[in-house]
C-alpha cells in the first residue's frame, strides 16, 4: 500500500473506532440528529480548515484564521445592523476584504522572503485589532435574510437536520478536493510544498501560487466568518479566539505533513469530525469538562506527528537501502 495513504487510513480508522466507542456507550449518538449537528456545529471550523490545508500543503502556516473569522463577523454585524446593508452585499464586501487581506500577506511572504508564521502573526494582530476598532460590543444580527438562511435545512430520516451551513462546508470540501487533485493550481501547490527550488526550476509560477494560496485561505476564512455569523447571529470581536490552532490540529490529525507537500483535503474533513466527536462525547457524558477536548486533541496531535515521523524514517531507510543495493 502507498505509505502516503497510511496516515489518512489511520485517521479514518481512529474516527470510526472513536464513533463506534461513543455509540457503544451512548446508543443515542448513533442518529442522524447527531450527525447533522456534527456538520452544523463544525461548519466554520471545516471551511477554515480547507484553506489551512492548502497553506500547510505549500509548506506555510496561517495564524490569522481565527482573527479573520471574528473580523468578518463584526464587519457583517456592523454593516447589516448599523448601516442597514443587505446581507448579500455585506457578504461580498467581507469576502473581498478578506481575500485582499490574504493576498497581501502572500505578497509579503513571497517577495520579502519572511517566514509565513511571523507575517500571518502580524495579520492576526491586525485583523483582531480592526475588530476592536469597529466595536468592542457584541452586536446581534436580526435580518429576515438571516432568518431565512438559518431556517433552510433538509430534514433527514430520524429527525436530523442537514442545515445550509453544514451543506456549505461539505460543498467547500468537495471543491477543495477538486482544486487540490484535479487542477493545475493544485499540482502547483503540492510542487511548491514538496520542494520550492525544484518547483521554481520546473517552471511553476511560485509567486502567483503563493499569493493565490494565501488569498484562498483569506477567502475561506471570510466564508468561515460568514458561516460563523449565521451560526451565532451576532458579531463579537472576541469570538473565534484560538480557532487557528483547532484548524491546524484538524489538518495535522487529517494526515497532512506540516513540512508541506504531502496530504489530502479529505483527511482534514475527518480531522474536523474527530474533534467534533470528542466534543459531542463530552456533552453526552455530562461529567467531563471541556478542557479534556484540548488534552485529547494534544495527544492525538502528538500521536499523528509521531506516526508521520516513523513513516518518513522508514521510507528514508528503504530509499537508502535500495540506492545502496
Amino acid at each position, binding site marked *: 500500500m502507498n505509505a502516503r495513504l497510511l496516515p489518512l487510513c489511520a485517521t479514518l480508522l481512529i474516527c470510526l473506532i472513536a464513533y463506534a466507542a461513543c455509540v457503544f456507550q451512548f446508543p443515542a449518538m448513533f442518529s442522524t440528529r447527531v450527525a447533522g449537528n456534527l456538520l452544523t456545529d463544525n461548519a466554520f471550523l471545516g471551511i477554515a480548515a480547507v484553506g489551512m490545508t492548502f497553506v500547510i500543503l505549500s509548506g506555510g*502556516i496561517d495564524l490569522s484564521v481565527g482573527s479573520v473569522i471574528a473580523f468578518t463577523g463584526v464587519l457583517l454585524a456592523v454593516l447589516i445592523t448599523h448601516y442597514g446593508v443587505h446581507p448579500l452585499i455585506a457578504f461580498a464586501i467581507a469576502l473581498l476584504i478578506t481575500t485582499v487581506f490574504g493576498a497581501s500577506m502572500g505578497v*509579503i511572504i513571497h517577495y*520579502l*522572503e*519572511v*517566514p509565513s*508564521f*511571523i*507575517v500571518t*502573526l*502580524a*495579520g*492576526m*494582530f*491586525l485583523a*483582531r*485589532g*480592526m*475588530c*476592536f*476598532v469597529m466595536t*468592542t460590543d457584541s452586536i446581534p444580527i436580526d435580518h429576515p435574510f438571516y432568518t431565512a438562511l438559518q431556517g433552510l435545512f433538509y430534514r433527514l430520516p430520524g429527525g436530523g437536520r442537514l442545515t445550509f451551513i453544514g451543506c456549505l462546508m461539505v460543498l467547500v470540501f468537495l471543491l477543495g478536493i477538486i482544486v487540490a487533485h484535479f487542477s493545475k493550481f493544485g499540482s502547483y501547490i503540492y510542487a511548491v510544498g514538496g520542494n520550492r527550488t525544484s518547483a521554481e526550476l520546473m517552471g511553476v509560477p511560485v509567486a502567483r501560487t503563493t499569493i493565490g494560496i494565501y488569498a484562498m485561505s483569506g477567502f475561506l476564512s471570510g466564508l468561515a466568518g460568514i458561516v460563523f455569523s449565521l451560526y451565532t447571529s451576532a458579531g463579537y*470581536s472576541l469570538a473565534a479566539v484560538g480557532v487557528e*490552532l483547532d484548524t*491546524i*490540529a484538524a489538518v*495535522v490529525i487529517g494526515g497532512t505533513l*506540516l*513540512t508541506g507537500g504531502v496530504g489530502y483535503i479529505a483527511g482534514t474533513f475527518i480531522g474536523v469530525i474527530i474533534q467534533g466527536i470528542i466534543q459531542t462525547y463530552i456533552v453526552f457524558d455530562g461529567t467531563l*469538562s471541556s*478542557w*479534556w*477536548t*484540548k*488534552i485529547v*486533541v*494534544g*495527544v492525538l*496531535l*502528538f500521536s499523528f*506527528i*509521531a506516526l508521520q*515521523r516513523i513513516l518518513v524514517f522508514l521510507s528514508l531507510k528503504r530509499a537508502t537501502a535500495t540506492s545502496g543495493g
Partner: protein
Amino acid sequence: MIRLNTAALTKAMPQLLSLMLILFLNYLAFPGFFEIRLQDGRLFGSLIDVFNRGAPVIILAIGMTAVIASRGVDLSVGAVMAVAGALAATMTVAGYPLPVVILAALGAGLACGLWNGILVAYFDLQPIVATLILMVAGRGIAQLITEGSIVTFTEPGLIFFGTGSFAGVPMPILIAASLLAVAIAVVRRTALGLLIESIGINRSASSYAGLNSKLLLLVIYGFCGLCASLAGIIIAADIRGADANNAGLWLELDAILAVVVGGTSLFGGRFSILMSALGAVIIQAMNTGILLSGFPPEYNLILKALVIIVILLAQSFSSLGGWAFLKGEFRSKGTKRQ
C-alpha cells in the same frame, strides 16, 4: 574594548532610538511619565511600571532568544506559564510550604521544556510543530490542575514574588534583571553562546564538528520552559490567582516579537539576549503609552502588527543590500579589526 562597545552601541541604535521616541511620545501624552516617587519603601511611577509589567515578557524573551538562536521557536511558553501558575496556586491553597511550591512550579516548566526539547532534538520534529502540541494541550493540563476554576490565594510569601519589593525595587524587575545578568554571563563568558549560534547556523555541520547538538537543544528548550514557569509564577503572584484560560495568553507572540524587535534573526545564528530584553521593554512602553494616552487598549494589536511589518520591511531591505551603501564605512572597519 571601547571600540567594541561603540560597535555594539551602533548596532543597537535603531532599537534605542525607537525606545527613546516611544518614551518621548509617552511623555507628550502623559507629562508625569518620568516622575518616580518612593512610597512605603517602594518605587512608583509610570517608568517603573513599564519595567514591572514588562518583566514577564523580558523573562520569556530571554529563554525565547536562546531557542530562536538555535533556529527554533517555542510556541508553548504561554501555556507553560498557565501550567506553572496553576500548579503554584493550587499547591499553595492545598497548604504546601513556599519552597516546595516554587520548586514544583519551576520543575513543571522545566519538564514541559524538556518535553519540547526531546521532540525537537531526538524526534527531529520542526520546532513549530513540536511546541504546538504543548501549546494546545498545556492549557488543558492547566485547567485540569485548577479543575476549571480560577484558584485564588492569600499566602503572602508567594504574593511577594508579584507585588513585593526589595530595596525599593519591585520583585518582578529584580527577578528579570538577575536572570538577564546570569543568562548573559553564562552565554558570553563561556562557549555556550557560540555553540548555540553554531547549531542555529548549521546544525549538521556543528554535529560533525563534534558538538553534541541534541543535548544542547534539550538544554535550550529546558531553559526556555524554566523561564516560562518563572514568568507564570510572577503573573499568578501578581493577580493572586491562577486563571488557566487567560494566564500568558498571546504572551508567546509577545516574546517572539520582543526577540525579533531585538534584532535576532528568526533563521537562527547571531543573537543578543540584552537586545531581546530591550525589545520587550519597547513593546511594554508601547502598551503603557497607549493606556496612558487614553486610547482603547485594543489599538495595541494594530500597533504591534505595524511594528512587525516595519521590522520585516527593514530586515528584508537590509538583506537585499539596501543598507550596504550606508554601512560600507562600518563594514570596512569591522574587517580591519578582525
